């Protein structure tokens, strides 16, 4: 979530268990934020027509906040399945380079490596980075495990207990995600090119809102990222992070 969390570097190489425990501890602040986000996801998913169980299942098997919220906001706006899944896939495309960077630090056969790759979430990946292409995978597992627990807990609370809170709109719960996204976006705007892409994405989406089917404006706005074809990125594309 944070674009550049601090990277604790133990003096000597810790054992797998120690690494896992250190990861859990480092993941706690992100787990707290994730819990609040998940609560609002649970409430908004119910609003978008999900059952409480559906919202919880989605958090359990997708476990990618920005993709989940993208899906819910597109469906709530009347968008179709294809637009929702397509936008979620694009939102998750950042896990491709992150997974590729992690690969040499994983072990085992293809299936095991694939399973270990599922633990990548932004904050854990960034914190487990030990530099020079090395990652502490047990630290990664620990940091993601604690975030997974609160992500499920928050979703369950919002999805099953959200009705007791009253109208989510009167409480302002619907702004949690756009506000969170704006904070993330400001962290992404490191150079003129990313600022230009953000402006172009916003302009494309706004121009299409009145004329295109719901969900499509966000999908088409991703075309602004094609500017990246023109020249190799100046800085490391893996450094960016959304939850």
């Amino acid at each position: 979530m944070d674009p550049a969390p601090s990277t604790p570097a133990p003096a000597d190489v810790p054992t797998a268990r120690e690494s896992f425990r250190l990861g859990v501890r480092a993941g706690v602040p992100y787990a707290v934020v994730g819990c609040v986000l998940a609560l609002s996801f649970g409430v908004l998913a119910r609003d978008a027509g999900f059952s409480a169980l559906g919202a919880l299942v989605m958090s359990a098997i997708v476990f990618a906040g920005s993709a989940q919220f993208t899906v819910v906001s597109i469906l709530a706006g009347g968008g179709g399945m294809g637009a929702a899944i397509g936008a979620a896939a694009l939102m998750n495309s950042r896990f491709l380079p992150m997974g590729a960077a992690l690969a040499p630090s994983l072990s085992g056969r293809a299936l095991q490596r694939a399973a270990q790759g599922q633990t990548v979430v932004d904050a854990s990946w960034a914190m487990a980075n030990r530099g020079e292409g090395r990652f502490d995978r047990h630290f990664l597992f620990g940091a993601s495990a604690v975030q997974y627990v609160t992500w499920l807990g928050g979703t369950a609370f919002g999805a099953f207990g959200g009705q007791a809170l009253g109208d989510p709109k009167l409480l302002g719960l619907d702004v949690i995600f756009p506000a969170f996204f704006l904070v993330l976006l400001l962290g992404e705007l490191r150079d003129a090119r990313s600022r230009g892409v953000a402006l172009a994405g916003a302009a494309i989406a706004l121009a299409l809102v009145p004329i295109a089917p719901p969900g499509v404006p966000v999908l088409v706005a991703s075309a602004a990222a094609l500017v990246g074809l023109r020249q190799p990125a100046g800085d490391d594309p893996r450094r960016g992070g959304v939850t």
Partner: protein
Amino acid sequence: MSTELWLVIAGCAAVTAIIKAAGPVALGGRELPPRAAGVIGLMAPALLAALIVTQALADGSRLHVGADTAGVAVAGLVAWRGGSVLPAVALAVVVTAGLRALG
């Protein structure tokens, strides 16, 4: 809940799992082509900006400015002035709920 929503959940889980597995299984530590990496690196700003404006400046298929617009703007201001994520989001909620209570 409709079958369509369950399919969306399944589809979303499948694409996420495939994307997360692709690097560790297929790429095996090789770098992505620079052009692909460049596009992917810019995906977050493009999508985040589009999601923010379609939620804060639109209501369905029409453009609309409301209490949520003000709330999100306040969060941006707090973060831009160096505030961290929790106070920014909390203030956005308070401003939005407050304006709606007044309106």
